[in-house]
């Protein structure tokens, strides 16, 4: 079974964000091409360098955001993970899960809360930065209602009511 990694509201805002990035990226590339075709002095070259830098930055972020839209929560009788375009990227077996908890991933303007499944018990410091954990951890912004019951049955450790209230949508 696969589910969206974003809620409906999340998909909408993400799509708007991608649209803004795409338009900005196209305009920045146009500026860079225009600038490259109209070099007449040293100042043009310096300004072009900054324009190219910005254009590449915007395009690469747009690419990663589009890629992130393709990610889906993937769960079956063996475990839970993330699939992108049909390929499993992260997967943890139910039997390996030692902790279900809530932590944070850093964002440019603070942090976002996540529910995670981990093959060991994390300390408080590790919970504040789930993104860079190198061992077997999967984290989600929400758990889909449709599969919550089944996940609860298969999990070797319980998901608290508080977690369910906050993360099951």
């Amino acid at each position, binding site marked *: 079974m696969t589910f969206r990694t974003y809620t409906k509201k999340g998909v909408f805002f993400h799509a708007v964000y991608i649209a803004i990035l795409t338009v900005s990226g196209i*305009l920045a590339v146009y500026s860079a091409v*225009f600038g490259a075709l109209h070099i007449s002095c040293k*100042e043009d070259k310096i*300004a072009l360098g900054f324009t190219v830098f910005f254009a590449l930055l915007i395009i*690469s972020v747009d690419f990663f955001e589009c*890629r992130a839209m393709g990610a889906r929560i993937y769960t079956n009788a063996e475990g839970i993970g993330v699939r992108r375009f049909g390929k499993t990227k992260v997967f943890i077996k139910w039997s390996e899960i030692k902790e279900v908890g809530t932590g944070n991933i850093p964002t*440019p303007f603070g942090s976002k809360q996540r529910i995670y499944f981990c093959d060991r018990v994390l300390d408080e410091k590790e919970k504040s930065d789930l993104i860079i954990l190198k061992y077997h951890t999967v984290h989600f912004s929400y758990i889909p209602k449709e599969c919550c019951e089944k996940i609860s049955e298969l999990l070797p450790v319980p998901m608290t009511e508080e977690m369910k209230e906050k993360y099951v949508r």
Partner: protein
Amino acid sequence: MWILMIAALAAMSALTILQTPREWFGNRLTRVLVIVFHTIGIASILLILFAVYRMKDGVLREIIIWTETFYFTVTAFALLLSAVRYFGFELARHFKHRKILKILSSQTAFFLAAILISAVYMIPSVYNATTLRTVTYDIQLEKSCADDSLSIAVISDFHVGAGARHSEMDQMVQLVQAAKPDVILIDGDICDSSSSVSDMEYMEKALEKLDCRYGIFYAEGNHEKECRFDPEPYLRRADVTILKDCGVMLENGVNIVGRRNALKVGVKQIMKDCGLDTEAPTIVLQHRTKGLSRLEGVADLAICGHTHGYAFPFMGLLMPYQRDISFGHRMYGETHAIVSAGVAEWGYRTKWPSQSDVTVINIIFREAEQ
């Protein structure tokens, strides 16, 4: 216009305040410092917009202008860096690059970096804004006139007051005198809302010192309408010919056409109205760089200001949408277009990668040469 400007400045300040590390508001000392920094910065901007024109030259006026310059630079860099940080963060997150993520997630490090980069940026950019250089272009025209050559000095965008101080006006006079031009062209934006009576008088005296064979000609810019004091009487007293959608033929047979800032009337129409010879070499003086490609075949040389060159490193992003050319020399068919970086900046005193300049154009008339 005023509402838009104030809204833009308010947005810049608000976004910078949002970027301020939250923990800084928890500590009494840093909280007071942040409030004082923004209060003084915003006050300096408002003073420049609404009060500096009433002030006499002196330390207080200089402090206000330099404070505004620093505040403007820090807020602009904070905004630009926040965009870079945001994009960099997204990249680091996808690549799971621990070190970069750690650096970028620290708001304190980011904010201190914005201040440090602004301070470092200000070293060359203040020098570029306040130290004038002469930029020389040698061009050939396929037409002839009574002279074999013509030397033109172009000065534009003084923004006398918050832009060009009296020292920059003196440098401008020195550089123009050293170039010994045949004709001097002033390409608009000589004053703005910050210009005081004493600034206007100083500009008049500076222009009076300029001397050349065929005279001084002026075309208006977009900031003249904001000036508290009408610049035209000052220009007339300095013996400057004002060209508002009209043209004159110099004694050597070269046409000088000056366009209003709106660029509504075409050059052909102006030449027809003024009875100018369309076969003679024609120099068009217009403030903005808009519509230069349309001058192809109409003018031999178009001279512009307005852009201040690349006053900020990220101006290249706007290049295709606002301007045909930001700085330097470009050809539109047989028509030469030259854009000056201006004598000063508008409201603040930083400029990079461009440098404030006096543009000197040496024209050789090819038919005369043969």
